């Protein structure tokens, strides 16, 4: 069995109420150490107020080949954007 510590993906929520964001990864023996290491590696300059870690092997990802079927359907739905509709100026801000 490999003696390499598993890989963890690190997500950090910054000061201003935004969602956790992926910042990078690191190796650690378990979740507790992964959080401690993430503190040292990814928040040395006050970058965050909350840390999530998840073992990389538990992340499922879409594959680049699926790009077409996954994202093309939204291309044709321009009416989902507010700029699709012309609102007369007299109506005021909407």
């Amino acid at each position: 069995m490999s003696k390499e510590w598993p890989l963890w993906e690190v997500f950090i929520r910054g000061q201003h109420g935004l969602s956790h964001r992926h910042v990078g990864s690191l190796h650690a023996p378990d979740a507790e150490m992964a959080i401690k290491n993430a503190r040292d590696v990814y928040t040395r300059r006050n970058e965050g107020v909350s840390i999530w870690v998840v073992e990389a092997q538990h992340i499922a990802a879409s594959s680049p080949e699926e790009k077409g079927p996954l994202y093309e359907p939204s291309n044709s739905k321009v009416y989902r954007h507010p700029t699709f509709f012309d609102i007369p100026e007299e109506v005021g801000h909407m």
Partner: protein
Amino acid sequence: MYAQLVKTAGTGVKTREEMSDEERNFQDRVDRDEKIEPKDWMPDDYRATLIRQIGQHAHSEIVGQLPEGNWITRAPTLERKAILLAKVQDEAGHGLYLYCAAETLGVTRDELTEELLSGRMKYSSIFNYPTLNWADIGAVGWLVDGAAIMNQVPLQRTSYGPYSRAMIRICKEESFHQRQGYDIMMKMAQGSDAQRRMAQDALNRFWYPSLMMFGPSDKDSVHSAQSLAWKIKIDTNDELRQRFVDQTVPQAKYLGLTIPDENLKWNEERGAHDFSEPDWAEFFNVIKGKGPCNVDRMDARVAAWEDGAWVRDGLLAHARKKSATRTAAE
């Protein structure tokens, strides 16, 4: 520089006709400044070259902690000690960001460590020079981190997504490093005669090794041409070296220190400084393992790896035991 002599895998740039459909499509994406991500198709040589380059860069950050770590316990004040400690800790972080970027290409961390410890993979020649006194710590921050920045700033735009993101993080942290070094140099240069002499001596010893950081001229290299086409190299070694010299000259002047090069002068026509090349024979000697500190550096890394084995193994055994009890309880 941190990756000084990365031999690009493959035989050089292919013409569009020589490329397969996949290769053409890939090159088009690179030309459009689209980022290449880990799961995307990429040429084998692109992958192999990047592993070498990012690995060498990561190893340099890690080994680069040693010359400065040498002075943490002997920093002249508590404040300088805290600053140097923070700087060296950043370098550890830089190494980790880069190892992770390399790992997305399919190499494991243990393989990379093994390649470094066995001497098969290199790190920057600069870290095989000793830091003899406190002024050297100033010179390292000012010149070595200065040269590193010169190389890393353009690499933020590199084509490989994870590498580019690591570079962006690193660059954010890097300018503190150079400034703290220059700050030490200012104190020394404005200090007593003995301090000025130390500052000048440090500049004398670190000037040419810093110029070597960019690697020998590669303007005629087919390997570099391929790396430039793939945007894993953004400027030639000579362009970066020139930029570094032009930036450093006024900084040395402000300190009242003399750059140890009689041929250094402003060339009106070129709008740049003329300067002497470093001794490339010395460079190749250091790369081959015969620099002043190669043996010490490798011994320190091997000892750290071997002495840390029981901690790594113990923590892993503990983690496995805990998860086994948890599974049994469910």
